[in-house]
């Protein structure tokens, strides 16, 4: 075991897989010599050479198409889209191609690609460096969608994603790269050093795709969340005075509804929390499935806490960000109704 932040854990997962499987190659904008704008591939080109870790032209559609072609030809590409806000030029290649190739070819062709991409706000990135577009991709059949909330899961899930024979989008909440974030920008930054999930095995291990994890047990209410909001929700749970259970989804599709339903059927109350905009967000899907599974056990309407339905505003980042007070407010409403 070693103390790692999320950047080091993601780097380590790629290092392990480059070592383990010569079909693994890593490419993206600035990932080679420079090691990525967030350092997630630092040192990998030096260690494995430019044939395994290399820079690409600035063309996200090209990056994903290249990965599909290489994947069809026996490679296992791990791509980086520098910010998830930049993923849209690759939309057609992801939605129409990577996610449907196996289906449309009757299983003859498939591409085991991993798309790593930093997401989320809280770093003063404005509307082009802060988005959480996971809900756009969870709507697409044939692609797995992951968002880790800590270094341990990030490494284990990324190794699973790379080994998975289906295309996987691996969202990295960039506000969590250097430490857990509890939603209050006025508090001093935390590091992963003293966090139990910052202890990460140095070698190979996997965290299963499609499995949620209960990070806090409780009897009164279930919060279902993922990414940065796991930590914000934990902080709100502590402050609420209620016995709140917090579930970290980790994988969005395929959704671990059994895990969620077991909890909500027990507590009878639920709040769904994500940073992405509310309307049509992944929370709506989670809420629908809970309603289908738990309706007769529910004690109160389920509430969602999400980003407002506006672009991420640079100067109003903390009015936009669904922080502790909004999660607390939702817990209170659901508990009192």
């Amino acid at each position, binding site marked *: 075991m070693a103390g790692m932040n999320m950047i080091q854990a993601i780097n380590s997962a790629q290092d392990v897989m480059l070592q383990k*499987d*010569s*079909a693994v190659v890593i490419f993206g*904008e*600035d990932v*080679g*010599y*420079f090691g990525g*704008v967030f350092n997630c591939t630092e040192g990998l080109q030096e260690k494995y050479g*430019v*044939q395994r870790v*290399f*820079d*690409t*032209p*600035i*063309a996200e*559609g*090209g990056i994903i198409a290249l990965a599909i072609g290489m994947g069809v030809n*026996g*490679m296992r590409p791990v791509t980086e889209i520098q910010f998830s*806000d*930049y993923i*849209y*030029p690759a939309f057609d290649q992801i939605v129409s191609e990577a996610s449907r190739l196996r289906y449309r070819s009757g299983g003859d062709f498939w591409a085991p690609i991993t798309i790593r991409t930093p997401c989320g706000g809280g770093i*003063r*990135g*404005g*509307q*082009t*460096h802060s988005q959480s577009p996971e809900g756009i991709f969870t709507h697409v059949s044939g692609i797995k969608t992951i968002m880790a909330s800590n270094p341990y899961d990030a490494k284990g899930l990324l190794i699973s994603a790379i080994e998975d024979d289906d295309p996987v989008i691996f969202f990295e909440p960039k506000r969590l790269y250097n430490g857990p974030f509890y939603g209050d920008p006025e508090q001093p930054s935390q590091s992963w050093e003293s966090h139990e999930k910052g202890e990460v095995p140095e070698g190979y291990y996997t965290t299963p795709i499609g499995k949620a994890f209960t990070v806090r047990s409780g009897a009164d209410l279930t919060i279902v969340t993922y990414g940065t909001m796991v930590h914000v929700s934990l902080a709100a749970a502590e402050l609420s005075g209620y016995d709140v259970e917090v579930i970290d989804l980790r994988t969005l599709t395929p959704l671990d509804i059994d895990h969620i339903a077991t909890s909500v059927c027990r507590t009878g109350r639920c709040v769904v929390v994500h940073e992405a905009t*509310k*309307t049509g967000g992944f929370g709506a899907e989670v809420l629908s499935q809970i309603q289908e599974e738990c309706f007769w056990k529910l004690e109160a309407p389920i509430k969602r806490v999400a980003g*407002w*339905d*506006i*672009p991420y*505003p*640079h*100067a*109003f980042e903390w*009015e*936009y960000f669904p922080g502790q*007070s*909004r999660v607390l*407010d939702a817990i209170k409403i659901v508990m009192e109704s």
Partner: protein
Amino acid sequence: MVPDRGKKLNVPAPRHRPGEKPEFDNLDIPDAGTVPRPDVMMDPKEMFTYANRLIRVLGRDNKAVGEWNPALSAADMRKGLYDMMTTRIYDDRMQNMQRVGKMSFYIKSRGEEAVAVAQAMALDKKDMLFPSYRQQGLLISRGRDLLDMMNHCLSNSKDNCKGRQLPVMYTWAAGNFFSISGNLGTQFCQAVGWAVASALKGEDALAATWIGEGTTATADFHHGMTFAAVYNAPAILNVVNNQWAISSFQGIAGGEKASFASRGIGYGMPGLRVDGNDFLAVYAVTKWAAERARNGGGPTIIEHFTYRADAHSTSDDPTKYRPEHEPEAWPLGDPIDRLKSHLIEIDEWSEVRHLEAIEEITALVTAKYKEAESYGTLNSGDRPEVSSMFEDVFKEQPEHLRRQYQSLQSLIPDLGA
């Protein structure tokens, strides 16, 4: 498992990395004045050579020579010099203010000032500009108040983007300067759309757009080139080849295979390759392309061969991927020094006047900045109304956004109505 077949994949690499001696002796730099100036309506099929040479006017002896010499008046050249100096002093001040936390981010244009300033001068005010994030010289040349630029960068109460955009992603409708996106290349074909509308309406205005050489890899570049060529749009499509796209040198965008100006050939479009640090040459090629577009000759792609003398932005350290002294080794010099030296050469400027200009501009920038701060900065003082974050999502605010604002108000009591 994939068998190791040895090094077969070509991954371009720059000639030097940190710790190595930067040399540019591989560059073919023709003497100033040696590339002829073709007729503005010349058939693109005959223009191959212009996309592969380097159009230069200012020679090493500081004289302006050749058919491309635009014969600008001394007053115009002094305006160009002054605007480039203002751009640089403004940039330095704003970057310093970013470093002390007054704003979140900044992008300088050091070394590339001639591209924006000379082109703004060569175009008409009615021409529409679709820039990337490194052409602040366009704003300065067109006379935008530095105060307004600063207010935007500080995201303060007088920011015309209402605190919604990262610093340097300017918008200035009154100056025919389009809203900068932040996503690369998206403006390239939008400019063509603007130009197509101008042609449809029978108007004389053209559109000009700028991207970096790295962005020529995007599909947007191909869209812009194709649509501009197909519709013979009155557009000037600029590729600022500043050698670096964050850490990726221009070879990663395919610059080792062919010049960026020569991309035009396959689309049936003239390509001009110009010394981007030569103010007079940039001015002259822009005039050529504008005249061609206004005569119905359609679009031109211009490659500005220049050098990004500073970091990509405040978020990267260039010494991590290129030699520390590479900027000084750039063989085409500095655009401000070169125009200054030319004006001195022809007795229209002096070292004393230059120093006086620096003092004057610095005093102006300092005064403007002081005023801008009085309207707030990102982290202190006044800022736009919080309610404004729910406006302009649509023309009319829908009910659900009104309710979301009410929710926010109820959580933050001191927010006010």
